[in-house]
Structures are given as C-alpha cells and as structure tokens.
C-alpha cells in the first residue's frame, strides 16, 4: 500500500501533497482504530478479567481463578443453553444456506418478474429480529395464531404447539431465524451466480452436460467464496442471537429455549452474578472462535494456493 502510494507519480509532485497523501489516510483511520482498540478489544480484556473475579452486583477485582467457569459448567441451565445453541446454530446455518441457495438458483432461471420476487424474499431482512420475533410469536401461539385459525376453519384436530412445548420451542426460533435470513443469503448467492463466466457454462453445454451436472460440478463449486461469506455471517448471528429469542420465547417455556446470550444477560444483569455472566460471555467468544478460525485459516491457505 505504502510502496504503491510512493511509486505513484504525483502530478505537480509537491512534497507537501506527497506527505498529505501519505499521512491523511492514517490520520483519518486513527480514531476508528483507537475506538475499536478500546471499545472492542479493551472491553473483551475487561470481560475476561471480570470472569476471573467473584464480581456480583458491581465489578470487584479480587482474583479467584477459574471458579466462575467451574460454577458455569456445573449449571444445568448453561448446558441447556449450549445444547440449544448447537441445535439452533446447525439448523439455522444449514437451512439458511440450503434455502438461500435454492431460491437463488430458481430465481436465476431468467424468469419473469424476477425483480419483484427478489425484493419479496429480501424484505424480511429489512425487519429487526425483534419485529420478526414478535410477529412469529403471534403466528405460532396456539390460542391466537396458526392453530387457532386452522381450527376455526374446521380442521379441529390441527395442532401446532411448538412455541409452548418445551421440547420444540427452540425449533420455532430456527423457523423465525431462517425466515428472516434466507432472503439475504439468496441475495448473496444470486450475486455469485451472476458473476460466473457464461462461457464456461456454454462450453459445458456444448460438451453435453445436463443442467443438473452443470450446477453440481461447475456453478456451485465456483461459489466457494460466497459460501464462506454466508457461513461467517450466519454463524456469528447464531452465536450472538439474543433479540430474536427474547421477542419470540423470552427463553421459555421455563428456560427451554435459552441461548448463551440470554443466559449471559440473565445472570450478569438480573441475578447479580456479574462474574458468572462474564464467564459465559467469554465462552461465547471461544465458541465463535472455534467455529470461525478454522474456516478463516483454511480460506486464507486456499487463497495462497491459488496464487
């Protein structure tokens, strides 16, 4: 970057302009860098430190080692939250990718009113998760929504009570989450599909490949970077998911649909167990790192390979 700037011939080549061109980007970027150093990395460090203290109502800086982590993994509710995250994370990412890709491929068939359909699928993304959660809460509520509607239409035996069923509640979060995110993933894939060189596909057609084979062997593999971006975006939404659960089930019935983020909020802010809450926040960071770092590393290696 720097060498490129220095090598670029500066018209009029005043040393002041050269200095300015060199310094200005740094000066403009500095505040952002400083702010993110303090407010992102600084607070991560603070949280890690708090998780090693016996903090309750207010921060307390006595050191107790890993006691909070031991208490955390002794807590049944934390295990429920972890299990729910596994179910929700896997289904949300997998279904989001699958439905998004399917929609994108279908829309890519040069159909009529594509623009209209595209924005139709994309609209849920314009809503906040709170709105999505509240709307689905009403739709899925057995005495207000879908079940009530079907029964009043005469389907007396129709039953859909996942929202109030402790064993199924987490799946309603998946439904609402996928509904919101699939359109966005579709847009990503559609952009990827449009970016594929037509001549490769034409060549494959000349060779007599079927449409299915073209998609399976050429198009989908060539969208690897899109998969990667979608995966990163979806999995971080999954791990930090909070507002959707709060609006849809509030972690209920009981704490059956608790996720690590709702667990953290409840312990740190309503139960005066700041240390335990901090420990769960650090665990969330580790989970995210465990999912993303291998991908980022693999992707980086692949790029170097390609070069």
């Amino acid at each position, binding site marked *: 970057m720097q060498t490129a700037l220095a090598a670029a011939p500066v018209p009029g080549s005043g040393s002041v302009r050269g200095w300015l061109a060199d310094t200005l980007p740094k000066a403009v970027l500095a505040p952002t860098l400083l702010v993110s150093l303090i407010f992102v990395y600084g607070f991560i460090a603070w949280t890690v430190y708090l998780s090693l203290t016996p903090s*309750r*109502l*207010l*921060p307390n800086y006595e050191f107790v080692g890993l006691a909070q982590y031991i208490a955390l993994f002794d807590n*049944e*509710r934390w295990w429920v939250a972890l299990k729910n995250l596994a179910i929700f994370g896997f289904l949300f990412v997998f279904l989001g990718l699958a439905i998004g890709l399917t929609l994108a491929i279908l829309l890519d068939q040069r159909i009529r009113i594509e623009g209209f359909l595209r924005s139709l699928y994309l609209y849920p993304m314009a809503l906040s998760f709170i709105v999505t959660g509240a709307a689905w*809460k009403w739709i899925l*509520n*057995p*005495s*207000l929504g879908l079940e009530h509607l079907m029964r009043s239409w005469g389907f007396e035996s129709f039953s859909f*009570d996942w*929202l*109030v069923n*402790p064993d199924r509640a987490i799946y309603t979060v998946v439904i609402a989450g996928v509904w919101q995110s699939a359109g966005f993933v579709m847009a990503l894939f559609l952009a990827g599909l449009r970016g594929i060189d037509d001549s490769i596909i034409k060549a494959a057609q000349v060779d007599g490949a079927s449409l299915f084979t073209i998609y399976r062997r050429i198009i989908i593999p060539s969208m690897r970077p899109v998969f990667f971006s979608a995966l990163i975006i979806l999995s971080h939404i999954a791990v930090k998911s909070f507002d959707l659960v709060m609006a849809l*089930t*509030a972690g*209920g*019935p*009981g*704490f*059956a649909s608790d996720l690590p983020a709702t667990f953290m909020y*409840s*312990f740190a*802010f*309503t*139960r*005066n*167990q700041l240390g335990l809450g901090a420990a769960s926040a650090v665990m969330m960071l580790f989970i995210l790192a465990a999912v993303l770092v291998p991908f980022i590393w693999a992707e980086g290696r692949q790029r170097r390979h390609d070069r």
Partner: protein
Amino acid sequence: MKRLLFAAALGASLLGSTLPAYPAEEVEVLHWWTSGGEARSVAELKKMLEAKGYKWKDFAVAGGGGENAMTVLKSRVVSGNPPTAAQIKGPTIQEWGAEGVLANLDDTAKAGTWDGLLPPVVANVMKYQGHYVAAPVNVHRVNWMWVNPEVFKKAGAKVPTTWEEFATACDKIQKAGMIAVAHGGQPWQDSTVFESVALGVGGADFYKKAFVQLDQGALGGATMQKAFSVLRNIQKCTDKGAPGRDWNLATAMVIQGKAGMQFMGDWAKGEFTAAGKTPGKDFLCVPAPGTKGAYTFNIDSFVMFEQKSAGAKAGQKALAEAIMSPEFQEIFNLNKGSIPARAGVSMAKFDQCAKDSTAEFQGSSKSGALVPSWAHGMAIPASTQGALFDVVTQFFNSDMSPKDAAQKLAQAGKTK
C-alpha cells in the same frame, strides 16, 4: 430558569414555608413506575417535594421489571454520581449496603419514630447493619387468589379454601367448558403461584425455614414434595396458551369470565378496577387456599444513596420524610392498589380488598405468619432466587416428578 425561580418563590410565599439554604436543590429519583396508576403515584411525591421547595428530577427508566433501571443505576454509581434515591427492594438493599454507597437515615427515622410505625419485619428490610438506609412506600400482598364469582356460579363450584377443594372446583369449571386457572407461564409467575402453594401446604414456619433460611431439609423434604404435586395439579388447570403470557393478560381472562381464578399479588386489582369492576361483587379477593391468616409481603422502597453536598443531603432528608408521611402513603397506595407500609394511616378511602389486606397484615405481624415473598425478591439474594426460579419453572414445564423437583430445589438453595 427565571420562571422556575418565580414558581419556587411563589410556592414558598403561598405555603409560608422557608426555603432551604440552597433554593431549588435537585432531588433525583430513579424509578420504573411509568404506567398508569404507578405514574400518578409518583407524581404525588413530586408535588409534595416541590411544595417543600425542592426541584424534582425524574429519572424514570421503563421496562423489564426494573432490570433496565438497575443497569443504569450501576453505571451511575460506578462513575461516582449516584441519584438521590432509587427504587430498590428486599435483600438487594443489603447488597448495595455492602458496596458502601448508601446514606444513613437514622436521624430522620428517629425524628419520625419509624421504629414505632413499621412492623419489625418491615423495618429490618429497610436497615443495613442496624441503620436505616431506605424508606418503604407500600405493602403488596402476594398470596391472593382473584376470583370471578360468575364463572364459579355457572360451573356450580364453590370458591376453594383448601387445596382439596381447589381440585374439585378446577374439575367443575373445566367440565363446564371454561379455563379454571388463568396463568402466565413466565418464571416469576410460576414461582408466584408456587410460593402461595408452599405457604398453604406447609404453613408459615415451614415457609420461613425453606425460603428465608434456605434449610436443606425443608427445601428437599416431604412437605415440599407435596407442594410440588399441588403445583402439578394447578398446571393441569391452566390453558395451552399460558406459556409466555403476561400477568395482566391472564387477569383480563378472569375479568372477561373466560377463566375462574388467578393467583397473583394485589397489583392485579388495578386491572379489575380499571375495567370498572367492584370488589366483592364483580370479583372476589380471597387468600390462596390454605393461606388464610398468613401474609406474603412485597414491599417497594426507596433506597438513599450517599450524597456529597449539604444541599443534596437536606433534599434527601425531605424526600425520606415525604415518603413516610401519612398523606403520601394514603394517596400513593390508593393509586397503586397496595396498602400503606406504616401504621397510622386512615383506611377510610380504601376498598374492601385493601381493608382485608391491612387486617391480615397486622394480624399476621403479631402471629408471626408475616413472611417475605421470595418470588418477588424480598427473602433471598437475586442469585439464589434465580436458581429457585429455574427449578420451579422447569418443573412447571416438564413432567418432572415432585421428588426430583424437591431435590433440585435443595441443590439450588445452595447457590450463593
């Protein structure tokens, strides 16, 4: 500012009171009473302080049953700039006391003979290490059962006074095609019902042993198992839409005659009166089965934070005096649906439910059956309360056996 000074001067001249050394000293009060009757109650306090020549700075943080307000309060205290007073109650007062940020109100309390006006159980909640740090504003009774007599009449059922009678009444109402118990399946509501059940099944001494002293034997014992099996019966009397429902929507079901009864504290009364219903006629307030003569209390209070300047301290004192004055306690509680925390307030303007509540409050205070509501943060620290909530709500939403539930409850009681 000019207008304000003018108003202050006018107020002072009209009332003939002398202004304190710092005119229009600010009194900043953090609270989360922002809805209807509650907001009107706070407005009364504001009026009284402004009449004394102080400037009221409202610091209302709505939402989340005070969770949001607590988060804001923590950041204010940590930054060394606490408000004059904040709405904090129960053992949380002790936790704040331990942080060393509360003001000592002993002088005000002595001058106002608070010790003589408050029952000892209530006074103890307001003290940290023997010193007054908070002033109580009201007393809510939690172990109420709200009844729609019309529903009971249609079903041919009798309003239950024991848990055996409750089972029969539930059966009859369900057979008549109505919902027996209006319930909102949120952790705090599950536990609100459960603490009434435990009090009814085991009595006040058992209740205190289990939920105040956190005695392992009482928490995991046979009486607790019986309480859990009664809770299971109640759960079967609720409808399918209960999980996640807000308490006031459950109350509305009783008001509209869709459901027969609800177990809820006396803040539910506000919903009935707002719908134009009369106590004793359109709805009944009776103690939860088996809890007649016993009283689970939930007391709201204002905790005073240590102030730096003398003017702020004077304002704080005036605030504490105003809160404890009979005038404020009367008008506040008429609006809020609760009863005055202090003795010596005329009950003439209150309705029958409030009069019953007062009689039981005084009676149970003498008999020792006046117990703190643990589901409303009056008995045990927030962390232990949360752990007990988890067990009760898990039991309510699964097919766990009463025996396992009692065992888990004992385990949860160890949470520090």
